[in-house]
């Protein structure tokens, strides 16, 4: 490489190299043609050492996972798709989906309240987040489930009068499922409110001014101009929250609600195969998180429209490009 560099340095002071199109007939010193040279990549030996050490560690972990009989992979396989486990999995997904959607809808409302000009709305929103972020989810869950102790009946009517349209026993209304959804939703709303508010604040004030000067109405301004830009800041944290929620649903076991985690607990209490069954639950949580990560990638990519000059290739497009370029005749490099 050093000899090539010298050649470049030598050719530089030549006037021909400065004035681009050499006039025909003018004697020009032939510029060296490097197109036939082979490029040798720079070498980083320590990177290889590091890679080798880590690879060894990964291999050791994999080996122990595969060979230690106490993991009881046979038992894992046997229970992985068992009907009761799948049923628990469906409950977990149901809880996640319902409280995730409700939580973010409520969180969005709270975020707008917090950003409004009314001091009352601001303080109510602030207090909501303060309370629900300050109490452990476990406590909230038990509190909702035992609401019947505090209020025997729940009724709908005109406040401060005796008019009642509708009245129901609290214990019939708040089932395990309802308590679980209520607890998870309110907790989720408190956190997502802050995430959404942060996202909205990250959008430049000039965007709102530009929209206002164009006469774009307030609702359209939020949905078309601000939110799509806020999404870039909201999404990574929001997905963190949703993934947290997937596993957070496991706390519902305190209500004896048969979601994934409670289900495997019931099974291993009977069969005494504690670790393999915990592994079953873990693997399912990993599967859910992985699927969510794929969604996250593509949704984030969608909202990065216009934020980067050129969208990065998706893994699929990368693979296609890799095969396209490597299947074609080698040796010629593309600059």
């Amino acid at each position: 490489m050093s000899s090539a560099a010298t050649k470049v340095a030598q050719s530089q002071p030549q006037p021909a190299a400065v004035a681009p199109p050499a006039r025909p007939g003018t004697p020009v010193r032939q510029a060296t043609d490097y197109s036939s040279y082979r490029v040798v990549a720079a070498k980083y030996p320590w990177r290889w050492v590091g890679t080798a050490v880590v690879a060894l560690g990964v291999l050791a972990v994999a080996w122990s996972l595969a060979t230690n009989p106490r993991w009881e992979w046979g038992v894992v396989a046997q229970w992985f798709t068992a009907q009761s486990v799948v049923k628990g999995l469906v409950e977990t997904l149901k809880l996640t989906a319902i409280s995730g959607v409700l939580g973010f809808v409520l969180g969005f409302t709270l975020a707008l309240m917090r950003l409004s000009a009314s001091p009352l709305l601001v303080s109510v929103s602030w207090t909501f987040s303060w309370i629900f972020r300050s109490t452990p989810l476990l406590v909230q869950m038990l509190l909702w489930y035992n609401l019947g102790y505090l209020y025997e009946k729940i009724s709908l009517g005109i406040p401060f009068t005796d008019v009642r349209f509708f009245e129901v026993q609290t214990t019939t209304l708040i089932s395990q499922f309802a308590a679980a959804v209520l607890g998870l939703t309110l907790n989720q709303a408190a956190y997502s409110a802050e995430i959404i508010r942060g996202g909205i604040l990250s959008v430049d004030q000039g965007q709102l001014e530009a929209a206002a000067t164009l006469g774009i109405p307030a609702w359209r301004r939020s949905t078309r101009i601000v939110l799509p830009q806020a999404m870039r800041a909201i999404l990574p944290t929001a997905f963190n929250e949703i993934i947290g929620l997937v596993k957070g649903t496991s706390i519902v076991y305190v209500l004896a609600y048969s979601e994934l985690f409670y289900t495997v607990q019931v099974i291993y209490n009977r069969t005494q195969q504690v670790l393999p069954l915990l592994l079953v639950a873990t693997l399912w949580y990993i599967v859910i998180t992985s699927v969510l990560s794929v969604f996250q990638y593509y949704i984030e990519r969608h909202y990065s429209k216009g934020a980067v000059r050129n969208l990065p290739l998706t893994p699929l497009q990368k693979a296609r490009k890799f095969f396209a370029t490597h299947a074609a005749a080698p040796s010629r490099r593309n600059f």
Partner: protein
Amino acid sequence: MTETLTAPSATRGLVEITGVRKSFGPAEVLKGVSLTVEPGGVAVIVGPSGSGKSTLLRTINHLEKVDGGHITIDGQLVGYEVRGDRLHELREKDILKQRTEIGMVFQNFNLFPHLTALENVAEAPVVAQGRSKAEARRRGLELLDRVGLKDRADAYPRQLSGGQQQRVAIARALALDPKILLFDEPTSALDPELVNEVLDVIRELATSGTTLIVVTHEMGFARDVADTVVFMDQGQIVEQGTPQEIFTNPQEPRTRSFFSKVLEPAFNI
């Protein structure tokens, strides 16, 4: 919405600013400013930074609420409505409607980065004026063509140069067929070699019958294009007149001292 931009109409776009005051906290940035811009006129406001030029511009479309005085456009109050002997502040909906008659171009473009050039231009006519999407697109392409960017209609703002972005912003402001166009230092964020492509577009607009109010530091442009040059300092209009009067024979010492700093010697013959 049958008026076309190219047809000069002397009946619309009269801006009358009367005794406007504005404070930000303890700082009074506009200390009773009065200015009249005739329909189809081109007023260029110059002056040192912090003199209140941009704030004055932003009061014209009610982006800044005035603390005192008033502004009318073709005799209609901006941001308020007269009922009996009181001025009622307009609701946002009505303010937005007024704003569709006043286009604004910002120093840092403020294009919507997640929308293409054409989407930027075609958004407001649909939601603020209820035009059909197809019509807004057709008109958007026309306007992009007019600023020389028809072939970049599908590019996102970040894929465009600063000068191109500002030209898209001008097309966006034109899409609502405004009576008045406000330019807030439209070339200040641009590299020197990109300034002229934007000024050329504004220059072309100056002959179109739309009232233009331009805040700028481009003195050459002000001399070429303005009917009226307004010199502002410390929240007041110090002097105004034709470019000839202001640039070659300023009366006030403050004006003279400002121009002696910003004008190149060759310019000040």
